[in-house]
């Protein structure tokens, strides 16, 4: 090998070339600046050892866990439950324990990138400045061409429920009147139902459930989707409570129940009405409560007596009369008795109406405003923040949609019919999408139409952690921080706790929080066209967390300063029993079995039964796609720990149906209807009924799997009142199946 050196000696003759190479290299190295000699030798500042930070899981989930992030030398090592959080009590779910894995996935979006053409997989890395310039240019161009920002549409929802993430809405508002996706795909039919009934939706402190003697879990699966509630349910059981689960699927929750009732999907109202009839027939209704606090009892009683029989209810629901009797008897005689209604149950064309029918059970038995009783659904009573991050008005002179009062407003599209509406809009058409905290590519109904909608845009910007089905169809992806990389504050729509989310690690790569993106885009817009955006152009993220607090929040949570949350999470000092004063906020001030408001909105005034959707002849099976165990929608399932634990989606099929279709365990099955198809492996199980097939929505790594290929955007019956648009009947999805 010595000759190598000698050879290089000869090469001295070509010194010119060599020098050139060295010079080029030196110049390049200086430019790249990847590593540099520190200006002065300083002692390393990063050797901070092990630190812990309070974080809050920001996912769209009942439990909104308090977390402790353990960071060693600036690297997130593990994530545990916060023992001082009174609801989650130091425990996390299977997803929560995978966060270190998720944060350091090499698959994360690292830099702003531009895809041309859209969907080609041909990506170019750009600087934040370039990306923001392209985006700002397009925004200003649209504004110029159409005279307003209405061609720009925002679709943002529940990817991160941290309060500071409302900066996205704030950013759009401060650019001008625009178009945005209004509504929520989750829970709106049930919210409206409770508003018609009681004037508002307000669940008990869920820790209250321990005081109940009879708990009916109606269409909720806390064993997968609210694990901490199971502890409270077990506690109630240990104190002698009976637990009933009513669900079309025999869930893990159902296996913990004293009584499980398998119901035909979407017929819950009929079961509740059958129960009500039995209760009235046996004189177990609370006449005093009905007299004092309920509007419309005579009308409803008449309906029950004329239209409802147990045999009728049994025929519709598939639940034997014997079971209805047992259930009604148990509910009406074992007090306090509690109803908890899940969100899956109201994703039907009669979902809101069914919730109203179940609520009615609590009303006629006087179980509202009672410790250990009530009809639990959700609340937003702890969300009274300033929403400072979205408190900026459009620039002066902005033009938008002219309202009836002559003032300009934003234009809305239905989030739950997003694909169709975004394509149908005219004057002006929608030309640009901003998507953050949302993955319509896999979570919206009719995946094909979503793709078409994306294709009809001039520009699609997706802000996300991973290149999911939506980001794949974007022109520009922007990397955003995880909740370990940006500060925030979180509350829940179920329990009464509030947690601070401290920044635990530096952002990976060039990830920015939604707030930082808002600042940066505002800065760019103002550079290009001064005054075009009212959003602040810089700030301190921690300070902005502080700006969300007000005296009301402080009083509610019994704290003096938000920084106190760094010591421990706080619980709202709300009454633990909702409606204890029976002061309902309905127009009549009473619980309204008869709602004029519902009638005025074109709905049945009473919780009468609205027939469930019937299966068309060519697609005779219902296809349920409820929430998964290993994922939260399209989050989590793609990471290594989850792929090991749950490598592929399975279609749960009853053995009878499988036999009729010649399907064996493990066979590939095609699930299809007019809209599209899904292919996956069969798992034969009697946990699902014979006329229903089940799989769980998720985004698997390197997989095109998407349950929403067969789901049509059929609206639920309610939702408009509170969220602006009706919910989606995700579970009114009918298909046929065949072996591949």
């Amino acid at each position, binding site marked *: 090998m010595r000759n190598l050196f000698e050879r290089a000696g000869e090469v001295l003759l070509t010194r010119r070339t060599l020098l050139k190479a060295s010079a080029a290299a030196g110049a390049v190295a200086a430019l790249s600046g990847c590593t540099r000699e520190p200006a002065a030798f300083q002692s390393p500042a990063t050797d901070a050892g092990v630190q812990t930070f309070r974080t809050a899981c920001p996912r769209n989930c009942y439990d909104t866990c308090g977390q402790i992030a353990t960071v060693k030398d600036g690297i997130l090592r593990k994530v545990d439950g916060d023992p001082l959080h009174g609801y989650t009590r130091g425990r996390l779910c299977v997803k929560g*324990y995978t966060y*270190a894995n998720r944060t350091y996935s090499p698959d994360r979006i690292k830099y702003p990138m531009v895809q041309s053409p859209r969907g080609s997989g041909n990506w170019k890395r750009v600087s934040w400045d370039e990306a923001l310039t392209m985006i700002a240019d397009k925004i200003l161009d649209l504004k110029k061409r159409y005279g307003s920002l209405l061609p720009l549409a925002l679709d943002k929802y529940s990817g991160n429920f941290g309060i500071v993430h409302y900066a996205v809405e704030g950013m759009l508002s401060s650019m001008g009147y625009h178009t945005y996706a209004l509504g929520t795909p989750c829970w709106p039919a049930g919210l409206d139902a409770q508003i018609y009934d009681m004037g508002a939706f307000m669940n008990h402190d869920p820790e209250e459930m321990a005081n109940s003697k009879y708990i009916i879990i109606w269409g909720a699966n806390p064993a997968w989707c609210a*694990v901490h509630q199971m502890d409270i349910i077990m506690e109630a059981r240990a104190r002698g409570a009976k637990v009933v689960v009513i669900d079309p699927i025999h869930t893990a929750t159902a296996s*913990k129940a004293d009584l*499980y009732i398998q119901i035909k999907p979407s017929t819950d109202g009929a079961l509740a009405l059958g129960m009500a009839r039995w209760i009235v027939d046996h004189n177990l209704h609370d006449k005093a409560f009905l007299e004092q606090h309920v509007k419309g009892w005579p009308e409803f009683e008449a309906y029950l007596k004329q239209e409802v029989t147990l045999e009728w209810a049994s025929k519709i629901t598939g639940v034997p009369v014997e079971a209805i009797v047992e259930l009604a008897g148990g509910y009406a005689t074992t007090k306090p008795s509690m109803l908890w209604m899940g969100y899956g149950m109201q994703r039907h064309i009669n979902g809101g109406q069914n919730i109203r029918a179940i609520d009615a059970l609590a009303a006629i038995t006087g179980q509202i405003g009672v410790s250990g009783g009530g009809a639990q659904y959700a609340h937003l009573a702890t969300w009274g923040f300033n929403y400072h991050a979205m408190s900026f008005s459009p620039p002066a002179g902005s033009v938008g949609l002219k309202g009836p009062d002559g003032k300009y407003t934003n234009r809305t599209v239905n989030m739950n019919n997003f694909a169709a509406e975004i394509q149908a809009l005219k004057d002006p058409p929608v030309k640009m999408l901003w998507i953050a905290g949302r993955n319509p590519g896999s979570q919206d109904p009719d995946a094909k139409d979503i793709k078409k909608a994306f294709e009809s845009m001039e520009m699609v910007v997706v802000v996300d952690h991973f290149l999911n089905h939506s980001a794949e169809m974007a022109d520009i992806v922007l990397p955003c921080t995880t909740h370990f990389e940006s500060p925030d504050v979180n509350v829940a729509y179920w329990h009464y706790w509030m947690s601070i989310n401290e920044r635990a690690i530096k952002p990976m790569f060039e990830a920015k929080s939604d707030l930082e993106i808002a600042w940066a885009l505002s800065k760019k817009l103002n550079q290009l066209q001064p005054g075009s955006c009212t959003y602040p152009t810089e700030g301190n993220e921690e300070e902005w967390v502080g700006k969300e607090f007000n005296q009301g929040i402080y009083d509610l949570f019994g704290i003096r300063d938000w920084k106190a949350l760094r010591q421990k999470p706080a619980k709202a000092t709300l009454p633990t029993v909702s409606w204890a004063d029976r002061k309902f906020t309905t127009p009549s001030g009473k619980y309204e079995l008869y709602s004029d408001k519902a009638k005025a909105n074109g709905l049945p005034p009473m919780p009468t039964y609205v027939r469930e959707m019937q299966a068309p002849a060519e697609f005779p099976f219902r296809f349920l796609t409820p929430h998964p*165990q290993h994922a939260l929608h399209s989050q989590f399932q793609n990471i290594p*720990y989850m792929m090991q634990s749950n490598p592929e989606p399975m279609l749960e099929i009853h053995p009878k149906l499988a036999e009729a279709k010649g399907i064996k365990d493990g066979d590939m099955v095609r699930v299809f209807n007019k809209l599209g198809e899904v292919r996956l492996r069969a798992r034969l199980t009697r946990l699902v009924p*014979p006329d229903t097939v089940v799989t769980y929505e998720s985004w698997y790594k390197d997989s095109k799997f998407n349950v929403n290929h067969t789901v049509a955007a059929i609206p639920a019956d309610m939702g408009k009142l509170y969220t602006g648009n009706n919910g989606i009947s995700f579970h009114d999805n009918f298909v046929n199946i065949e072996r591949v």
Partner: protein
Amino acid sequence: MPKQLGFHHNMANCIGCKSCQMACKNEYELEAEVNWRRVYPFREDPGTPERNFLSVACNHCENPECARVCPVGAYTKRADGIVEQNHDKCIGCRLCTMACPYGAARYSPAHRKASKCELCKTRLDAGLKPACVEACPARALTLVDLDQFAAPGAVKSVPGFPNSNITNPSIRFTPPVVGKQFRRDA
């Protein structure tokens, strides 16, 4: 004082949420393929279909087979009954993975070694609970001293659990209670 630490798995409370399995991986930064604790489906069929679960890690057996077969003596039993593995000694022969009736020792192709649950001995020594026990949202998993343990209804084995006569595992189960069901496939 004799001592034998072990687990009590209350299957009546277990919801199969896998928090225990994942909390263990989170605590020890285990590779995806290696599960020191695993949650198995329990007796879904026949008769009454249910979703119940077995959560199994190392059972810190009275007569550990792993220790018997290990050619390099990597396994030893502590005074409190914990079966420890000296990971440096392991040569990856995989005899323990074959010999353990419960699949406690897990082989990692990446490390060419086997490893297993040591009942969070360093956490215990620091006065903490094992990570899996700490994580269980349904409080279905507890750390017990079998020399003191007496829970009504607790049993040494359940259907589907391997033959416990071989090693006398330090685990007790409270079997799940099957509720009443009204099903549509009757």
